[in-house]
């Protein structure tokens, strides 16, 4: 809903966008919303280019891109979707790189529920454990890998509730409907520390790395602002922002 | 006896009545449109809840606001015939008839299903759907449906007003049979004088929510203090008894009540002794001081002047006459009255130009 509204706005703004050659339209995976807003501001300040971001799930954005949505750059929540676009010839060759690596947290809105080793998963003192839908969200897939690595998946499956995105999984836990859940660290992490509740920062070796890849889309091959954004994401200032939200590089 | 007291504020006036009505025969609630007739009937049925009111039917209390009594409609032993027949469209004719019939106990039933069907002549319609009936047929089914609850009081709200003259004529005989064959008192709302003249025994004259008069129809119609007698259609109804029949001239002689005087009318033979109702319009009656000789007018009756009143048109006078207890009205010009020097107490000859037999 919000996404199509942004897309509509973008269409309305197209005439003026034509006048400004150095504008970049970015499709951004929902989990990266907060850091992107900070980065966009810094990018516009430092480069003078205009940045217009649309947020949505990686699957939705993929569908829009393959059906002609006017995006220049795609920041996905995984590495497989950009790779798929690349194999379909939708991207500028050689532009793909990992702009962030996601970290997973087992989080509860209650202060003392989750211990810093995740033992609460074994104790089972909860009714619902929220995860993102593993079929469609990389953080959900990583969460199932963590549980499988600890031989808990089968035992915990009856208590799993799935959000359609990592954002919804967070919402289930934040509203208390699920006592705890696997969320993106970036959702509960601000300025280098936990913003509330209790959490176990899941060690990266318990799951496949959540590489979040970026690509320049084919139609932006000659847009200097698109390349400028890619360069900017490689830079120090962006790296600092990304880390402060709990991502690794 | 039906004891009726209601005070109900309506849009333009307040219905305010205090009446004792006979619990037998047909009582007409008569008045112009919007005079409160239907509201009064609905109060009696309990469809309208007058904030102040008392209603006793043969001593049984149906409403007494002071004592907080209000018997809901479905617990009152009434039948109600609506202006438009209001049959249930989701039921067949038979389903409509049985709706009320089924809801009273067998012990209460005084009218059988077949009796009502026969009385209203609706046997051929039973399997039909209401949508496929004519207006007259619908109204007959509506009346039969009301009768099948074996009501102790039948309320009829202008049951003929939605029908054209032909349909009216088709139903009136059924209403007369109803009155004659079933001993159910009927309250009959109408603004059509001819229906009232034909059916009513008792009459309540309503105007702007007030009862101007209530009484026997024979006595009420000639009253010169009521607007009814002053209008162009002023008339009396006389219930006469068939005294003889002249086969040769095909004339029926009807003896007026309390007298030996007869009114003759051209008609087919009717059994001697049967009661028939006549309507005599005031404008069809002229007066003469001497017994007219050599007149073609059939009916010449001796009468006494009771009172005179100026009609709604100042050129005319209404003269109320008495024929040994039977009242008669004559509408004559004021000029004629002054020429003849008419005054109360005077003996005159009334010449009746035409008579309508009502049944």
């Amino acid at each position, binding site marked *: 809903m919000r996404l199509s509204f942004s897309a509509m706005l973008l269409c309305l703004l197209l005439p003026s966008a034509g006048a400004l050659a150095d504008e970049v339209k970015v499709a951004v995976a929902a989990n990266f919303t907060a850091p992107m807003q900070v980065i966009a501001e810094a990018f516009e300040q430092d480069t003078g280019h205009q940045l217009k971001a649309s947020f949505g799930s990686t*699957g939705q954005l993929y569908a829009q891109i393959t059906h002609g949505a006017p995006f220049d750059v795609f920041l996905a929540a995984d590495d497989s979707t950009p790779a798929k676009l690349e194999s379909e010839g939708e991207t500028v060759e050689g532009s793909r790189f990992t702009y962030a690596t996601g970290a997973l947290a087992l989080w509860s809105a209650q202060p003392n529920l989750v211990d810093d080793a995740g033992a609460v998963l074994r104790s089972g003192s909860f009714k619902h454990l929220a995860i993102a839908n593993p079929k469609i969200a990389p953080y959900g897939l990583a969460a199932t890998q963590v549980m499988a690595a600890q031989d808990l998946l089968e035992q915990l499956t009856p208590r*799993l509730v799935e959000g*359609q995105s990592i954002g919804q999984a967070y*919402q289930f836990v934040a509203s208390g*409907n699920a006592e705890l859940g696997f969320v993106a660290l970036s959702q509960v992490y601000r300025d280098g520390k936990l913003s509330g509740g209790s959490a176990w920062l899941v060690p990266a070796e318990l799951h496949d790395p959540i590489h979040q890849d970026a690509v320049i889309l084919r139609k932006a091959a000659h847009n200097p602002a698109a390349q400028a954004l890619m360069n900017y994401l490689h830079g120090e200032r962006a790296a600092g922002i990304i880390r402060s939200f709990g991502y690794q590089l | 006896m039906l004891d009726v007291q209601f005070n109900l504020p309506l849009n333009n006036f307040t219905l305010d009545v205090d009446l004792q009505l006979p619990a037998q025969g047909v009582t007409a609630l008569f008045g112009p449109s919007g005079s409160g007739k239907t509201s009064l009937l609905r109060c009696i049925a*309990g469809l309208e809840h007058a904030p102040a009111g008392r209603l006793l039917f043969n001593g049984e209390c149906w409403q007494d606001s002071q004592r907080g009594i209000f018997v809901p409609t479905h617990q009152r032993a009434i039948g*109600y015939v609506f202006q438009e027949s209001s049959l249930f*469209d*989701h039921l067949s004719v038979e389903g409509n008839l049985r709706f*009320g019939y089924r809801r009273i106990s067998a012990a209460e039933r005084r009218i059988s299903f077949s009796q009502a069907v026969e009385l209203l002549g609706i046997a051929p319609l039973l399997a039909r759907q209401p949508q496929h009936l004519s207006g007259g047929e619908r109204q007959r089914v509506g009346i039969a449906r009301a009768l099948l609850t074996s009501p102790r009081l039948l309320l009829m709200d202008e049951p003929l007003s939605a029908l054209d003259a032909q349909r009216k004529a088709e139903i009136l005989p059924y209403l007369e049979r109803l009155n004659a064959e079933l001993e159910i008192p009927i309250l009959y709302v109408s603004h059509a004088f001819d229906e009232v003249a034909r059916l009513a025994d008792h009459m309540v004259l309503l105007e702007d929510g007030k009862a101007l008069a209530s009484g026997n129809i024979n006595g009420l119609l000639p009253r010169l203090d009521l607007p009814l007698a002053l209008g162009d259609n002023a008339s009396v109804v006389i219930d006469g008894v068939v005294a003889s029949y002249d086969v040769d001239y095909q004339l029926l002689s009807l003896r007026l009540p309390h007298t030996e005087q007869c009114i003759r009318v051209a008609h087919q033979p009717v059994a001697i002794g049967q009661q028939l109702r006549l309507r005599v319009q005031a404008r069809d009656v002229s007066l003469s001081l001497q017994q007219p000789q050599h007149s073609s007018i059939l009916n010449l009756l001796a009468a006494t002047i009771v009172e005179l009143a100026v009609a709604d048109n100042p050129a005319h006078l209404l003269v109320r006459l008495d024929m040994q207890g039977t009242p008669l009205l004559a509408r004559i010009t004021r000029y004629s009255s002054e020429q003849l020097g008419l005054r109360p107490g005077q003996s005159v000859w009334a010449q009746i130009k035409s008579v309508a037999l009502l049944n």
Partner: protein
Amino acid sequence: MPLSSSDLAAIWLTLQLASITTVLLLLLGTPLAWWLARTRSWLKAPIGAVVALPLVLPPTVIGFYLLVAMGPQGPVGALTQSLGLGTLSFTFTGLVIGSLFYSLPFVVQPIQNAFEAIGTRPLEVAATLRAGRFDRFFHVALPLARPGLVTASVLGFAHTIGEFGVVLMIGGNIPDQTRVVSVQIFNHVEAMEYAQAHWLAAGMLVFSFAILLTLQRRGRVGARAIS
């Protein structure tokens, strides 16, 4: 077979949800519609407006407030917990409750319209034929409102089938509990399984068209019966 067992399970669950919701809505909505059609109380306007809210509110708003209300800190959650029922989010019962709100106007309004169209006269007639208050309701008002009841059932059922936003917010995508067809389609699209998405989506399309076609035809028949 183009549909997987999980698709079939979602279809079966959706049919159950829609059936239960429709039956409950008819039971709860008919008295409410009756009251709305007949009352002269000042409460008619505000309550009528509340009933109509789901017509204009995005389902996500209903879903969001239900999620908050059913949560352990919410009023509904507090009540259900004190009754020993736990919380209702992520349960089939919770979905039924959400659907009741979501489809309420689609059931109440056609019935209310039907009751209003009947007017007072047939009920007065029934009263003079010795029918008491409930007798009148069941044997006159309901049969005469039948076209409205049929429309309400069809719309309530179809609208619940198409429910998505509310389920998304309070469901949790649990197989056989809360994973209904609309969510399953969303999952397929998100997972880029477009072929399976097409099968389910086309099924919904055909179903919805058939429902509306039936209603249109009934509408014509109904109009004839009234004249």
